[in-house]
């Protein structure tokens, strides 16, 4: 089986860049060989003087189509290892119509213009400059065209399924259309120019015959190809009444569960949720949804007997036909609440696990955060693709807050790195053995005039490299009596896409107080090379996003500064007060300080109850901020990782920036009261 870089999630690596450039080389070479470095030749197709575009394009499409069909038919690769673009009818119809006009005007398209530029065509250069401009224009007006951009979104849709044909039948039809187009093109050229060297030539006859023969060969290779229609289930044993109920369920699509919903329910740890993978064991072992049971179709009813009518049962496979049959069969046997996963495993991978950076459509920060949460959760717990020692250190997903017992049991495990965030003199005096000292302030700097901003990924990567950290490491952050000294570095790791980190509850104080091992030796560090990930941070927002959020339904802004700063009674910034509509809950209310300066998070139940008062629903978009982003990192951590709110974002620049920008609105009750007097 071939593994594509896409299926390995490695399209962002240097290796992929090199291979893409190499494939691009072949692409450019072929385009130029075809004469597509000439705008006149390209335009010829629209005036019936030179049909090379049709001949080359159809030959290429059919070659790749047949090649791919054979590779899949021989079992050497699977279609789900290729990135399949979504079908969005509105965008693609309007985009196609516009594109045609631009194509005939400019007589170039993006790929051929690159070839034209290489062949010295100045009109290609001008066209490319226009294309760059058109892309920028699109970005500028994107908010306006967004409805069209998503209009008629069907997800991944195969044309043969839309037409109710088998794949093989469609491929053969497509091939015949292409061959007909070749002959028509030759005839057209003959009629318009008097020259058609290939018309009726032995070459074109042989070429046409080979393509059609190869398309027919697919029927021999894989006679049972994917059918569009679901096989009718065996209805012999069912009573008419049961059948009616069944069909109603199917009709109302009550028998489906969407991948996003399943992911959220699994992450929430819903009890009595049974996920069943009905694929062969080999496929299950290669990849499955974490926590799923692998049950062959034949043994389904027996194996699921213990779960009958207890909670939800979700069935999935690669496609939907087999689970659909199984579901119907289970319902006939009296199983209630059996669902199939919409779009099967492929849908789950595409909609939940595909990295944000590889998605063709930009996600809102909220959706991106959801995707990253799923990726973190499911990729961390399936055990297979993880490199390094992660699986040895933690068996399940890493808890975000770890207790001293947890750390003591794992101290010294390779790949477990402890980072001490206390001031250096305290670290020098004594620390957890082998822990690394890190000054929180070294993670922040002035960005664009705003002080105390979390540094960009490249600078964080440089620092983490000096600390000898690796992407596969599990990080435990040890604060002093300020929990936010650990949560801010936590966000630095998240910005790097490094989600395997946890905060030590109670910090160093609790560790020392419990008499656990400490020493004063400096750890041996070998410098590493942390990769720079620039697309992992989907949680940081700027003032524009915050300004756009004010008063928007389904959103909450939480100002985590002490109440006096929120009301404007105290101010150490350009202006006092708060963002209009923002709620106030000081970060300090989320922790308990016991005697001996041991600071721990409040019990989760207590935190959950408190935030339920502020945040109307789980899906509410929450933005947290403070003065510099430091304290708000703690509230972010609490909401996102302890309470599981999926849509939490962090306004790093905070009140420092907001107060200093006079164009931004401020609510100040204290000032208002004074003015009244």
């Amino acid at each position, binding site marked *: 089986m071939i593994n*594509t*870089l896409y299926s390995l999630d490695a*399209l*962002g690596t240097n290796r992929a860049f090199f291979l*893409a*450039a190499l*494939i*691009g*080389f*072949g692409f*450019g070479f072929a385009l130029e060989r075809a*004469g597509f*470095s000439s705008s*006149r030749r390209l335009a010829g197709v629209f005036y019936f003087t030179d049909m090379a575009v049709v001949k*080359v394009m159809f*030959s*290429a*499409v059919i070659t*790749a189509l047949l*090649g791919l069909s054979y590779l899949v038919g021989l079992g050497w690769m699977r279609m789900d290892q290729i*990135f*399949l*673009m979504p*079908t*969005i009818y509105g*965008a*693609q119809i309007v*985009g196609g119509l516009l*594109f*045609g*006009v*631009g*194509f*005939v*005007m*400019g*007589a*170039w*398209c*993006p*790929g051929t213009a*690159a070839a034209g530029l290489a062949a*010295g065509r100045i*009109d290609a250069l001008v*066209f490319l400059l*226009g*294309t*760059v*401009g*058109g892309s920028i*224009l*699109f970005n500028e007006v994107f908010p306006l065209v967004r409805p069209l951009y998503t209009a008629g979104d*069907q997800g991944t849709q*195969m044309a043969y399924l839309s037409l109710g044909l088998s794949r093989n039948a469609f491929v053969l039809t497509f091939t015949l259309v292409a061959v007909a187009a070749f002959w028509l093109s030759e005839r057209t050229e003959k009629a318009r120019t008097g020259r058609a060297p290939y018309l009726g030539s032995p*070459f*074109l006859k042989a070429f046409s015959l080979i393509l059609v023969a190869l398309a027919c060969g697919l029927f021999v290779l894989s006679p049972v190809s994917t059918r569009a229609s679901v096989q009718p289930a065996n209805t012999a044993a069912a009573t008419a009444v049961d059948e009616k109920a069944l069909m109603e369920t199917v009709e109302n699509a009550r028998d489906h569960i969407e991948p996003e919903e399943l992911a959220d329910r699994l992450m929430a740890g819903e009890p009595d949720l049974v996920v069943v993978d009905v694929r062969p064991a080999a496929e299950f072992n290669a990849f499955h949804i974490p926590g799923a049971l692998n049950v062959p179709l034949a043994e389904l009813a027996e194996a699921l007997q213990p779960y009958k009518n207890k909670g939800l049962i979700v069935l999935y496979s690669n496609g939907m036909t087999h689970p659909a049959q199984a579901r119907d069969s289970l319902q006939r046997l009296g199983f209630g609440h059996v669902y199939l996963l919409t779009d099967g495993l492929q849908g789950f991978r595409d909609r939940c696990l595909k990295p*944000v950076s590889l998605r*063709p459509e*930009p996600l809102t920060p909220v959706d991106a955060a959801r995707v990253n949460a799923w990726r973190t959760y499911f990729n961390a717990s399936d055990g297979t693709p993880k490199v390094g020692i992660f699986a040895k250190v933690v068996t399940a997903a890493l808890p975000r807050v770890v207790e001293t017992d947890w750390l003591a049991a794992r101290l010294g495990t390779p790949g477990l790195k402890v980072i001490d965030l206390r001031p250096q003199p305290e670290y020098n005096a004594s620390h957890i053995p082998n822990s690394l000292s890190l000054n929180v302030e070294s993670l922040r700097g002035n960005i664009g005039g705003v002080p105390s901003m979390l540094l960009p990924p490249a600078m964080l990567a440089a620092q983490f490299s000096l600390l000898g950290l690796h992407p596969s490491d599990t990080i435990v952050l040890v604060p002093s009596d300020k929990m936010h000294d650990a949560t801010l570095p936590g966000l630095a790791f998240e910005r790097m896409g490094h989600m395997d980190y946890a905060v030590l509850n109670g910090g160093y104080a609790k560790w020392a107080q419990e008499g656990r091992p400490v020493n004063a030796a400096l750890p041996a560090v070998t410098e590493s090379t942390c990769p720079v990930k620039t697309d992992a941070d989907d949680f940081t927002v*700027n003032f524009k996003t915050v300004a756009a959020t004010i008063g928007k339904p389904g959103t909450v802004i939480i100002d985590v500064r002490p109440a006096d700063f929120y009301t404007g009674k105290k101010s150490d910034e350009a202006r006092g007060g708060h963002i209009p509509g923002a709620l106030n809950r000081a970060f300090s209310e989320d922790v308990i300080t016991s005697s001996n300066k041991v600071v721990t998070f409040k019990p989760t139940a207590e935190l959950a109850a408190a935030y339920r008062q502020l945040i109307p629903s789980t899906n509410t978009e929450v933005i947290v901020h403070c003065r510099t982003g430091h304290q708000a990192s703690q509230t972010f951590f609490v909401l996102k990782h302890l309470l599981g709110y999926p849509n939490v974002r962090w306004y790093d620049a905070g009140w420092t920036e907001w107060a200093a920008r006079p164009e931004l609105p401020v609510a100040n009750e204290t000032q208002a009261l004074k003015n009244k007097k």
Partner: protein
Amino acid sequence: MKTEANPLHGGPKPYSNPYLTGVLLGLVLLASFVILGAGLGASSGIARIGASLSLCVATSHTLGSAYFGKWGANPLHYYLVFMFVGTFVGALFSALLANRARIQVERGAASSVRRRLWYALAGGVIVGFASRLAQGCTSGQALSGGALLLSGSLVFMVCLFASGYAAAWFVRRQWHD
């Protein structure tokens, strides 16, 4: 797929057999599917160049924008940007090999350079915009998506040719000899 003409011969060589060149292009596309797990693409690379220009001029505006913003501070760090550069180099190699590289504005003899370049610029702007809207161009949607039998890509291809033929008459004068 070499042309038969003598390499020492002075003039540009004739183009290769379009069908066999199509097969070569199809094999490159197949290699892209098998190795990368994604098809060919050109407009995405150009759009990312646009995003990085936009970042140079207005950094915070671009990072905060709804479309380019998602590509982050380094939009060029993407496989299709490298593919676009490769396309240029591959074509240059072929053009030099066939003695076809010549600096010129391609147009009909009776058409002015100015008209041709204005058409090329306007066409470029429309194509740049349309490619973002449709999430791909002739390479990414028509060619790659077509070979994958995706409904949207095939619809895109049909619409592209339909409107191209409909508009051809209006812009024909750039090719008049």
